[in-house]
């Protein structure tokens, strides 16, 4: 049990391991004694203690090894503890490494060192340390998990896989560990195993605010394993249930929610050809919309436009390589809205350039998938409109502005003649000559500073208007 937890129990006047009910009682009793109005500082202390303990005492890992008794080691360990409290993991790891010179190959120190090295961003060193630890304690599962983590983070996927396997066999079941294991299995071609692990995780985990992101990631990965229509349908069904069961937690997510659906659109458009899948995705998109609607209206719009593009794409002469930018912006949750906008514009402009084909495809959708057409029709206006030319120019301008900031995109690559100089660049940027906004004043003109004097008697020679 860490000191923090012990202090918290003491502050609430409880014995370690008190029941949640008692913790709550103690907290409310103390709030009465130290109301936030009168003693804000004390209240904050109490509150912090309560928050630490209220969901039951933090799960304390049973320490398998005990620290060596050597006073030098203890002193170094104390330093390491202080450093890691300040999140200075590298320095903390150095302290532990020093301690190891006093007690070579001590399992307690090795374990601590490996953990710190992972945190400090030294995965290779961590893997080596964990290997040593495995020698001292061959049946200790975390030793394998740490080695696996270290190898995987250093990019040695082949080496990591057997370590993951071993740790799993020895019963290591940490949440992050299992997600990593599933990824490692994918990388090593063990797709069945990966799918099994993910399904197990998705089934057994209770979602809350802290791990809901991982859930979405897991679904996204699982989508990749759907091979045929029935698998896709089963997946979509399950995902739909997940969405409706966790809608409260999912508020605020947006791009991430659509990622599994987008995946089908980008990577496996052939699956969308099955009407059953198409309509299933359509209903899911609707429930998705309900979740994100008020948070990010732009996003839903982007998804819709994207669906439009995807459907138009099937018969057009775009090759697959033309799509990565768009796929990346819609699928990558870390990009901001402008980047997404840029990706969408880029594709839209390409499609507009080939308006004839796009229109033909659109007509085909209208006749074959009316329900889908209903959804995208408001965005199809650009293709039909009489003023398509004007619209095109407007979009092009926006695209040109954004292309200043973001790389990639197909539009300029395919139609280099469209690349004109962007507008609105600040006058003092290095690449552009200075452009005078007004006429240069003549010597006898009234001075532009508004003083009423002639220019030659006022600002001329001060260097302001030259």
């Amino acid at each position, binding site marked *: 049990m860490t000191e923090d937890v012990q202090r918290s129990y003491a502050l609430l006047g409880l014995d370690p391991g008190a029941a949640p009910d008692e913790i*709550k*009682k103690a907290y*409310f*009793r103390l*709030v*009465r004694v130290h*109301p*936030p*109005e*009168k003693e*804000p500082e004390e*209240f*904050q202390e109490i*509150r912090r203690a309560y928050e630490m303990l209220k969901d039951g005492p933090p799960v304390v890992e049973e320490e398998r090894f005990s620290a060596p008794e050597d006073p030098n080691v203890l002193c170094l360990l104390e330093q390491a503890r202080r450093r890691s409290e300040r*999140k200075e993991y590298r320095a903390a790891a150095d302290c532990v490494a020093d301690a190891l010179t006093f007690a070579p190959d001590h399992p307690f120190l090795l374990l601590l060192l490996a953990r710190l090295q992972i945190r400090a961003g030294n995965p290779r060193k961590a893997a080596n340390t964990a290997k040593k630890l495995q020698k001292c304690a061959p049946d200790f599962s975390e030793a394998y998990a740490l080695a696996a983590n270290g190898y995987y983070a250093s990019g040695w996927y082949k080496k990591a896989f057997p370590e993951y396997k071993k740790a799993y066999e020895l019963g290591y079941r940490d949440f992050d560990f299992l997600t990593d294991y599933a990824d490692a299995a994918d990388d090593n071609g063990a797709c069945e195993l990966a799918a099994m692990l993910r399904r197990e995780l998705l089934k057994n985990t209770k979602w*809350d*605010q802290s791990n809901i992101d991982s859930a979405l990631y897991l679904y996204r990965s699982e989508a990749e394993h759907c091979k045929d229509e029935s698998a896709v349908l089963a997946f979509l069904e399950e995902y739909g249930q997940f969405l409706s069961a966790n*809608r*409260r*937690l999912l*508020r*605020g997510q947006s791009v991430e929610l659509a990622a599994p659906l987008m995946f089908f659109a980008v990577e496996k458009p052939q699956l969308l050809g099955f009407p059953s899948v198409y309509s299933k995705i359509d209903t899911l998109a609707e429930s998705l919309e309900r979740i994100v609607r*008020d948070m990010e209206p732009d996003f839903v719009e982007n998804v819709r436009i994207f669906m439009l593009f995807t459907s138009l794409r099937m018969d057009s002469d775009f090759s697959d390589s033309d799509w990565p930018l768009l796929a990346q912006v819609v699928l990558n949750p*870390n*990009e*901001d*809205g*402008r*980047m997404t906008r840029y990706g969408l514009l880029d594709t839209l402009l390409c499609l507009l350039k080939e308006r004839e084909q796009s229109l033909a495809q659109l007509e085909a959708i209208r006749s074959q998938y009316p329900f889908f057409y209903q959804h995208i029709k408001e965005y199809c206006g650009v293709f039909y409109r009489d003023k398509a030319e004007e619209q095109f120019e407007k979009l092009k301008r926006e695209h040109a502005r954004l292309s200043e900031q973001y790389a990639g995109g197909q539009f300029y690559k395919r139609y280099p003649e469209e690349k004109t100089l962007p507008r609105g660049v*600040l*006058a*003092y940027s290095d690449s552009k000559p*200075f452009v*005078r*906004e*007004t006429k240069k004043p003549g010597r006898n003109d009234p001075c*532009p*500073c*508004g003083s009423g004097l002639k220019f030659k008697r006022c600002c001329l020679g001060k*260097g*302001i*208007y*030259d």
Partner: protein
Amino acid sequence: MSRTIGIDLGTSTTEAAVYRDGKKELIFNPDGLAITPSAVGIDESGNWVVGERARAQYLMLPESTAIEVKRKTGTDEAITLGRARYTPIELQAKLLSYVRAYASAYLGESVDRAVISVPAYFNDMQRRDTIRAGELAGFTVERILNEPTAAALSYGLDHMEEESHVLVYDLGGGTFDVTLLEMFDGVLEVKASGGDNQLGGKDFDELLMEHLLGRFQDRTGKNLRKDRRALARIKDEAEKCKIALSDSESFHILIPAICVLGGVPAELDETVTRAQFETLTKGLLQRTHEPIDTVLADAGITENEIDHVILVGGSTRMPMVARDILDYLGIEPVHAVHPEYSVAEGAAVQAGIISGEIDPAESLIMTDVNPYTLGVRTDDDGSGDCMNVVIPRNVTIPVTRTERYTTCRDYQTEVLVEVYQGESRIATHNHRLGKFYIRSIPARPVGAEELDISFSYDLNGILKVSAVLLSTGMEKGIEIDMAKGGEKAQDLSGWKEAEGAKTWRAVIRTAERLLSRPQALPEALRGSLREATDELKKALIHGNREDAEAEGDTLRELLRIAKGGGV
């Protein structure tokens, strides 16, 4: 010592209450009513009229009467009354001074301190303006209290022994608030609150009005939407109709001579059934679901754990509200408190606690949460516009949180700390509360220099932000008073007297001369120049030589660009 009263300054009605002689007591206005319409106007002879008279006048003179001013609180939108224009603050102040006058008369003593309630979802601008209106009316505003918290206080004082989770559902005239509270041993803990500050009874009226106008137009072809007088009368009838439909199944609206059609007066004659009204306004109730979801998720509570749903606000008298809650949460809501008076009573209880009328040892203790996410702008994703959360919303206050940040460029020597409030992940979509610079950071590779940024938010809505540079221990910070509204605009005229001003006088003069000529500079350069000049002055006033040095250099560089014609 003068009395402190509690005021529920609502969108459509205003109530006041006081705590004295050990009990909550409503304050009645000269008309003998506890409810005063929130209407302010100027009559034909140029005198101010407030309350019931102003509401009556609205039917005759809608041009010189203002209603629902609360909806504009926090904006600068001017409201025209007759020929003059007023700010929302001035009109709210008129209403509050009317309350102050009748409260003094009713209580027989001077009343100059008040606790005013606002929707929990009011942002800092709206809160600040409410305080200013109170001050204009001659009140010392002791506390701004969240309405659902007030309602819960009123409920809690009568149910001190209870141990439960209570959801307060407050659908008022103009705002919707939902708050989840935990009561335990006389302590009232707000776990989360949320809402929609543009949803209330008025929206129901408006939909009904729109329906009536549409029917009238279909029947006669005349569009009344531009006729203010007709609109005022229809609005009045629509409100009556809505209220009547809470008890009866249908309501007959008859407004004679609403306009003249072909020289003949035409009347508006419609019957609205409750079923019709409910279908019409179903969408509005659906808008309450999202805030409920958010609050439950933030509090980490499922609907099964809620013990009571308490209805507050006049609009909850509509039977469809209770039915919608039963459908959505599976809980039968209760009218445990008076829907119209409980907020004012709760404010009075808070006033009693503050003024010492209520013995703190025997009364309720309350803890509250911060309603908005607070954070700083960072460069996490390369866009330079990420909202990095330091204090999430719905955390119990007072609270102090610290986050560690690093530099994002090699050899970076200064960091701009910008403090934002809001829920968007893109910082600039949120509301900026303030900013400050950390300078003289040792030039080292990216990530090598670390900063600890601490946010400390107290019960009075004051946010203190400080940053410590770990390598040198240098510390800097600002104080943002959210109750008063963002960073104080500084008076910069004192820079001339500051130490070291001599060095920079020439530069500042040149810059100001340039700025005074609108034609001289491109807009972008102008902005940077003005900002740099202000920063330099600030640094001089604070006597911070390093900052002044840095700002001065920036300014010189900008001037060089400006003069050199952008080389």
